Each structure stands twice: as C-alpha cells, then as structure tokens.
C-alpha cells in the first residue's frame, strides 16, 4: 500500500515520522468518531436538565450490571438483528431493502392470527414452530410484493419497500381495530392474548426468551449461506457486478426474488418473536422502528451477518437507554433516536478512510 511517504520527496527521518504519525492519527479519529455523538447528546441533555454522565453510567450498568438488564438489551437486540439480516442479505445481492418495518409487522400479524385462530389448543412443541412458520410466511409474502414490483414491474425496491411499510402499518391497524380485536379489550385496539403454552420459554430472573438464540442461529446461517455455498457466491457476484453476473448466466431475477423473500421471512420471524416472546398480543405499534434500526445496524456492520451481532447489540443497548430516559427523567423515549442518529452520522462522516 502506498502511503504519502512513498509519494512525497521526504527525508528518511521525516518519512519515518509520517509513518509513525498515521496510525496514531487514525486511532485518534476513530476515538473522536465514537465519542463525539455521546458528547453532543450529553450537551443536549444538560440543556434539558438531565445529567448525561448519570445516564451513560446507568446505561452501561443496566446493560451489563445484572442479568436482568443484560437480558433487556438482548431482547431489544433480537428483532434488530433479524431485521438487520433482512437488510443485509439483499444488500449483498445489490438490493436495498428498507421494508423490514412492514415485513416485521405483517409477520407479527400472521403469527398472531395463526396463534389466536388456529393453534390455540396445540401443545408448545407443535404450536410454536407453526407460529414461527406463519410469521415467516407473512413477512415473506409482504417482501414478495416488493419482489414482484422489482422483478416484474421494475420499480426500485428502496421506494417500493419503504411505501409498503406504511401500507403494512395500516393493515395491522385494520385487523386490531376489526376482525382481530380482543372482545374483552374495552375498545382498546389490540388482539386477544395468545395461549400461554405458545409463549416462548423465558430464562429465570429475566424477561429474556429463547428467541435471541434463534436470531443468532439465523445470523450464522445467513453467513454460512453467503460465505460457503454456491448460492451465496452467486448472490455476491450479482451484488458485485450485475452485468458480469448476467453474462455468467446467473438468473438475476430469481436471485433478486429469492433474497427478498428470505429477507421478508427473517423480518417476519422477528415479528413472531415479538408476539410470542414479549407482548403476547398484537398492538398497532408492535415492533415499530425495529425495521429501520435493523437497516441501520446492517449498514453499520457493512452487511456482514456476524458483525451484525455486534452492531445490533449496540443499538439494543441504546434502545434500552431510551426506556431508562423516559422512566428516570421524563424525556420521551423517542429522544434517544437522536443519539442513535448522531452515532450513525459520525460513523458515516468518519468512514471515508475505509472505502465508502
């Protein structure tokens, strides 16, 4: 690799000095990129009468201090990981799927419908897997609309999936206000609770359910498929150069449809896990913003399924801090979105060295 020292006519001593300086400057820049958003957000909190130091300490403490807090972080990270995979997998084929939000919602809708209407009396061993399949089916169906529009209608998938998110939210709204409304809800818009045996098993002393193991397993699976199989190779070739892929006889439409359907299924499973693991019933806001967080986690992880484990955990931690903020200091939990956005802005701004 050529450095400035190779190109500029410098004395050997100066060249060595430059060589020593560069890694130090690089690390310095990384530190600034990581710390700056927290400092900025801290100033913002100070202005609003909240002690930022206390918040950050309690954020770390609630994430790592005890098993309950660690579990809460993993609970938040689970859907982010799955919707992150839903963004990362198509991204490797050169598609930008921002429809995780809607795919998750429809997955949750299908899983709830299956649980309430069909699987009510089944034992856990049969009911939970079937509910998972229903969720995956719902998500895949919703992504299938995007895939159809992309492959047959040649509509850009970014716009299509983004618009379908809004349609999905209204569809869920229709069902929880209408056919799927709990008759005993005193007119609140939510579905009946799913049967007790259909809830995911929970670890003692936490709210953490086994869904997060499932999510990690899917991340490893997606990595294996991408890195070790012929299909994964074809996906990566297509993502690298579409024209080369066409010339090599790769069936582009088939792969586009395939990755989108798989992505939808993953996001749909995230929706099912939200229902069976956390909420127990469908609400109009079930899983809201996880789809977007997943996209951003995938982007931060350079669409690598295993790095996504780390970034979704980080975003999960910040999301937990949002709850902390709301309970502890009365600020709306959405204000933590600002911190998330700031982190991402600085990452983007600092990313140039790494071939953006």
């Amino acid at each position, binding site marked *: 690799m050529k450095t400035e020292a190779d190109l500029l006519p410098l004395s050997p001593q100066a060249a060595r000095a430059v060589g020593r300086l560069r890694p130090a400057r690089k690390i310095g820049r990384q530190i600034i990129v990581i710390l700056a958003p927290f400092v900025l957000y801290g100033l913002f909190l100070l202005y609003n009468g909240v002690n930022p130091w206390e918040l950050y300490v309690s954020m770390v403490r609630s994430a790592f201090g005890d098993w309950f807090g660690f579990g809460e972080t993993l609970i938040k990270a689970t859907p982010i990981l799955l919707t992150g995979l839903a963004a990362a997998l198509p991204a490797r084929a050169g598609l930008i799927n921002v429809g995780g939000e809607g795919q998750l919602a429809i997955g949750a809708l299908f899983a709830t419908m299956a649980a309430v209407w069909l699987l009510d009396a089944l034992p856990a061993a049969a009911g939970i897997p079937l509910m998972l399949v229903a969720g995956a089916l719902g998500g895949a169906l919703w992504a299938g609309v995007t895939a159809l529009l992309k492959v047959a*209608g040649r509509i850009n998938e970014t*716009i299509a999936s983004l*618009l379908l998110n809004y349609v999905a939210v209204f569809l869920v709204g229709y069902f929880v206000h209408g056919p799927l409304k709990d008759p005993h809800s005193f007119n609140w818009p939510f579905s009946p609770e799913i049967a007790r045996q259909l809830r995911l098993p929970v670890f003692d002393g936490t709210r953490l359910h086994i869904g997060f193991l499932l999510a990690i397993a899917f991340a490893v699976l997606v990595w294996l498929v991408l890195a070790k199989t012929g299909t994964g190779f074809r996906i990566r070739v297509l993502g690298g150069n579409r024209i080369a892929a066409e010339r090599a006889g790769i069936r582009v439409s088939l792969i586009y449809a395939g990755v989108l359907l798989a992505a939808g299924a993953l996001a749909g499973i995230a929706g099912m896990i939200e229902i069976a693991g956390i909420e127990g019933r469908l609400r109009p806001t079930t899983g809201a913003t996880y789809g977007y967080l997943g996209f951003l986690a995938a982007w931060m992880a350079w669409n690598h399924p295993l790095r996504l484990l780390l970034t979704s955990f980080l975003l999960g931690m910040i999301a937990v801090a949002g709850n902390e903020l709301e309970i502890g200091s009365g600020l709306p939990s959405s204000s933590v*979105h600002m911190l998330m956005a700031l982190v991402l802005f600085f990452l983007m701004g600092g990313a140039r060295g790494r071939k953006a």
Partner: protein
Amino acid sequence: MIADILTGALRSGTSVMLASQGELISERAGVINLGTEGCMLAGALGGFATTVWTGNPWLGALAGGLCGMLLSLIHACLVLDRGANQLASGLTLMFFGIGVTAFLGRSFVSEQIVGFNPVPIPVLSDIPVLGEVLFNHDPLTYLSMLLVPALWFVLFRTRIGIILRAAGEREEVLFACGVNPRLVRYAAVLAGGFLAGIGGAQLSVAYTHSWVENMTAGRGVVAVAMVIFAAWRPFRAMLGAYLFGAAQALQLTVQQQGLPISPYFLFMAPYVLTLAALLIVERRKRSSVPEGLSRVFAADADG
C-alpha cells in the same frame, strides 16, 4: 362531491408537491435525499413554533424552510464531503428528524394558531366549480402553483438549469467548464431541503393548524416516490402530488358520507396509489434517470 375531492386534492397535496419539487431539484443534481421526510417534519415544527411565537405565518413558513434546509445540510455534508452512502444517510436523517421533532415538539402539541387561511381570489373564485377548486386556497398553495412553471423554466430554459442538470448527468462537463459540481450539488440539496421544509410548514401552519408528533406520516417518502413517478419533470411531479392529495381527500369524503369502508383501507389508498402510479410509469419508459443518480441506485450496496 367531485369538486370537494379536487379541492381537497390541492389542499392536502400541496405539502407533498412542495417537497417533491425540492427533491426534484436535488435529484436532478444527482443527490437523492430520503431524509426529505425529516426535513418536512423539521419544517412543520419550525414553522408551527415560529407562528406560535410571532403570530406571523409568513415568518413561520420562512422558518420552516430554514429548518428543512438546516437538516438537509447534514445530508449534503455527509454525502458530498464525506462520501457517505446517500440512501443510508437519508434514512438516518429521516430518523433524526422524527426523534428531534418528537422531542422538541412536546410543548407545542396543545398550542393553537391562526396560521394561513384560504384567501379566495376575487372574480376568479366566482367561476362555478373551477373557482372553488383552484382559487380558494391559502397563500402558500398559490405560491406553490407558481413555483412549478418557474422551476420548469429555470431547469430547462436557463444556464443555471443546464449547470444543475449537468451536475446530475456528467460532472466531467462541469469540470471542463470551470464549475465546481460539488458546489452545485450543495446548493441543490439545500434548496431541496428548503422546499421540503416549506412543505412541512404548509402542513402544520396552513392545512391542519396544529402540531402532532410525526405528523407527515410518510409524505416525504411519497414525495421522493413522486419524483421517480414524474420521471424528474416538475409538472408531472405536481400531478402526482395532487393525485396523492386526492386519495387523502377521498378518505375524508367517504368518511363524511358514512360509507361502510374501513378507514384503514382508505388510509392505505394514497400509498397504494403511489405504487400503482410508479408501476404504470416504469412499464412505459426507462432511462429518464439522471445518469449520476442511476449510479446511486446501481452502486454496490456495501458502500
């Protein structure tokens, strides 16, 4: 009833129309800004807050535009100076806009303003049907109608327009002419943010006269879609935005008539209609994408 829907189409489509004209400028220069949604929200809150403080809706509209511009400055910096991925940056901006406005807007939720009100144009508004549809609106709507032909003229009949479009098609040409394409793009993105902000302000100061968290509900995204639907042409973008507005108006009319259709299907209608519109256009014709922009879509999504 049809006159009602058409009037409503203009009334509720104007915010989308302003934002889509702004996005059109930005995309013609080669930068897609998915953060238009965030810019609109910033404009809606900025415009509303300023109107509450000063009581002057004109200052509100101006402040709304400036707020939108400020937010789009972040996008411009990241994309043009730091080489960030346009779609990721735009999406983050949308997120940022939702978070910031939800937070700062808390105390404005219950505020009330006078804002802009419909000003019927004398004589013209007396024309049956047409007068009511076209000439009985708030001042921002009139201005936005004038904006479209003005933008068309600037884009296709002036030197500035050629420079702007060259930035989106072939930046080498601009280099050869001694114009800095990055400056052109900066200006285009900021102009886009300004118009999106005014669009947002129209929504809160002239249309609903209130501020609600996340009140744009995807209008910014629709505006981006409308630009593609419009094949990057101002008049078609206007048509698309009014189509969206008509679907919104239809929803109100159906509710007033008490027809037995679930409101949720009507809420969906504008978004589905937007998709259908895209589908029709894409079938008809390709390759009207500004060349620089097609690189954004085709680029390796890793970046």
